């Protein structure tokens, strides 16, 4: 299997949230290789970019949800997946448990939680160009 690229795919159907996550990832000195708002787009982008990590919203536009996309990406690419969900309901968590989630984060989440989960999944990144953007905000 081809090696994965050192980038992050963001799957989130709320534009502003996706934008915020992108900024956070960029602030960590990581590359965002794409933003998808449906499961189908997420799978396409994952196959195209082979990201090391996917930030996956569970509820997405369209028929399929984040768990569907995650299983497909896991099988096709093998990326790590951090689920980001607004629901702590058992039914939802059970569905997430179907997949090999690296972490599950709950909305509303703050930068620190996201950064900690990304670092745990990908390892720390030397902050190069991001020094002008204080990561703590």
């Amino acid at each position, binding site marked *: 299997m081809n090696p994965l690229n050192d980038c992050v795919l963001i799957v989130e159907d709320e534009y*502003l949230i996706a*934008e*915020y996550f992108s*900024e956070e990832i960029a602030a960590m000195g990581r590359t965002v290789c794409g933003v998808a708002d449906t499961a189908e787009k997420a799978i396409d982008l994952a196959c195209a970019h082979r990201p090391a990590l996917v930030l996956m919203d569970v509820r997405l536009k369209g028929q399929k949800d984040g768990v569907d996309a995650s299983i497909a990406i896991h099988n096709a690419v093998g990326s790590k997946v951090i689920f980001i969900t*607004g*629901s702590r309901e058992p039914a939802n968590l059970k569905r997430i448990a179907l997949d090999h989630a690296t972490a599950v984060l709950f909305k509303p989440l703050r*930068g620190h939680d996201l950064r900690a989960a990304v670092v745990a999944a990908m390892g720390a990144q030397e902050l190069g160009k991001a020094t002008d953007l204080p990561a*703590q*905000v």
Partner: protein
Amino acid sequence: MFAREAKPKAVGALGLPGIDSVALPFHAPSASIAEAASGRAYAWIIAIILLYGAAAIAVMPVAGARGPDLPSITPFFVAGVLATELSTSFLLFVMARDQRTWSLLMLGCAYLFGSLMSIFHLLTFPNAVLPDFIVIGTDQSARWIYNFWYAGNSILALIAIVLEIAGWRIRAEQIGRAIALAVTGVVAGVLATVTLSIVAVDHLPALIRGSTWTPFDVFLISFELSVLIAGIALVLLVLRRRNVIFLLLSLVLTAMAFSQILSLEGPGRYTVGWSLGRLSWFLSACVLFLFFMRQFAEQQNLLSRARDFLEMRVDQRTAELTEAVKQRDLLLRELHHRVKNKMQIVDALLAMQARQSSETEARQTLHDLRSRISVLALAHQHFMEADFETFDVAPLLQELTRTILTNGADGSAVLQLNANPLMVTIDQAAPLGLLVTELIIDSLEHSPAPAFARIALTLQRNEAHAGVLTLSDNRPAEGARLPDPASDKARQRARVVAGLVRQLDATMTADHANGWTVEIIFPAPEEESK
């Protein structure tokens, strides 16, 4: 046989509340069991009357033949008449109470009179109870009682028919009294005629000579017969099939009339005519009784079907409600999910705004704002997960302090939280969380340097079961406070804290002898005793 027209509205009459709006899947009878008979029923009655007549004519030639003396047949005859007529009279009174018509009341009287008189007929009939012995009265008494019995029955029935034609009704508030009066009147009439027949029988004309009727007896019988025939004619020609009970009554009267005709034909006791007459009378006593029994069976059947139907409806309704609750639950969770998503968007907007800001103070302000908003989100989250009106605020404080500190200006500040489980309402949770947030932000701002902030937060109940929130920090003494306590920001914060304390109906005391300690006492709902 007496098919009735279905009236679905009759459900209410069953006394089953709340199903009026539901179409019953079967035909319920109308509110009353006394109602119009069908044309078929009318034709049947006419046919039976004609058959009865034909049978009577057929036996007439042998009616006069003398059969064996069978005095013991009288107790059987009387027992049968007594049981059926007494029951029928009771049922008729019950119906009269329901329908409030004078006609049914009078018919009930006729049956009550008949049943009571039958007892005295037995007691006065020669050899009926004991061989060669009459319990009371004389041989004449028996025949007089028999005639009174017959006449009373026929006349009361005729009056009932006339009242039915008139259609007079009893006022609701008088029905109880009317029935009591009727029963009393019947009993008085029975006693009067029986007394007359026994005590004053010597002053009355003789009705029986040997075992043959006297002409006066024949006159009386003929009079009774004409009353019966008048009744039958009124029913069949005037009332027709207006009321099924009275239509059946024509059958009853026919049987009675033929019992009289046969006993006239067989002039004397123990003739074939006399014996068949008794049988015919017994049959007449049974007609309405059988009708009521059939009604009872039908209503039982109906009740059981109504019950089955109701049970089915209850099951159906329960399933519907369960489904509705499920839907509502789903909707609530969807709403909850959306609220959290919106909170995330607000936070994202503030975070992006902060990132664009070059000034440290503006960034700090936006950061504090995010902290406050996240408190609201957390309070919402904990409330939704609690599922009850009250929930433990300790986990909320835990998460809240962690959020403020880990996302704070410096990760090295230390906050020691010691929160005992404490139930609060949703109305308290948000202001309490905001209060804690303000105090922590204040502590961080006042610390010599954020990295050295040491904050202790405790939550417990005091002896009076009130909630006690204590926050202490290591800020320098009064003089060295940073920033200026007179600044707009400090005043604003003091106002917010005071306002939240007020909202919580709490009291706040502050002490800065050693660092800074603030104690807030607020009313907490009682723990549920488990």
